[in-house]
């Protein structure tokens, strides 16, 4: 199932440089459904993932430590202090429009915060949450 991600990214890259958040979400949903055909992405589980304090890294315990408590309002990098624009596509049209960028930051940030990669299920839940907002 990991092999699907490059395929999806390749597909997006060929069909269009820019994808919509819904297309990117659909990609992760389809991948999650391979393990569980009845899978439906959940904003509630996404919100938990967004705010949960994993305790893997003392400096950056949760996604919200950099992205802010409200994905529609943005935050600032816990170490460098740099302002980070909102993750919610409703507040920031650049979000979830480039599949390779999305995948890269999931890998990087899940690695820092959870100490492992996020599953397709977690990514779909996460995007469902930030698209709904709050």
């Amino acid at each position, binding site marked *: 199932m990991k092999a699907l991600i490059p395929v999806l990214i390749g597909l997006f890259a060929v069909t269009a440089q820019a994808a919509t958040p819904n297309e990117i979400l659909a990609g992760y949903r389809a991948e999650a459904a391979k393990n569980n055909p009845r899978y439906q992405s959940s904003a509630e589980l996404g919100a938990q993932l967004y705010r949960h304090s994993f305790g893997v890294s003392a*400096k950056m315990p949760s996604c919200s430590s950099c992205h802010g408590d409200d994905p529609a309002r943005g935050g*600032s*990098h*816990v*170490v*460098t*202090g*740099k*302002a980070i624009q909102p993750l919610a596509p409703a507040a920031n049209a650049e979000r979830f429009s480039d599949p390779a960028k999305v995948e890269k930051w999931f890998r*990087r940030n899940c*690695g*820092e915060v959870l100490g492992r990669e996020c599953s397709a299920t977690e990514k779909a839940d996460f995007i469902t949450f930030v698209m709904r907002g709050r």
Partner: protein
Amino acid sequence: MNAAHLLAPLFSMFMVCTAQADDLRLPAGAPPAFQSECGACHLAFPPRLLVAEDWRRVMAGLDRHYGDNASLDEPTRRAIEAYLVENAGKPKKLGPSGTAAPGEAPRLTATAWFKRKHHEVPPAYWRHAEVRSPANCAACHKQAASGSYREREIVMPGGRRWQD
């Protein structure tokens, strides 16, 4: 063609000739990934603020980047390194480089030049909640993203303008 068109090139030549400490605009020719990668977690730092050798050390250890992982694919890494090295600062101007912790890559906030420019800044400001790190140039230099560090653009944390 009007006067502005004729004057613009002259004006930019003038700007180049009078390049000074408060003008740290990025030199032309940056690979696109320089902004998108090196400008994602912090400001895309001006190449002139570290010497070539120090940039090579930064770019050689991106997987252990001041406690973070900033690794890149090899072609991108090499393109960015070439840009940084080509536009690096002069050792004579920057003075001895330094690190904040043993084993770390050199920091542009630890050069003699940076310390001299900021010796009047009260130390408490560097740890202020709105600043967090001396490398957060934009917390005080409001036009840092466009490479301008003029004194009248400085707003200290808490909202006070800087006066000598």
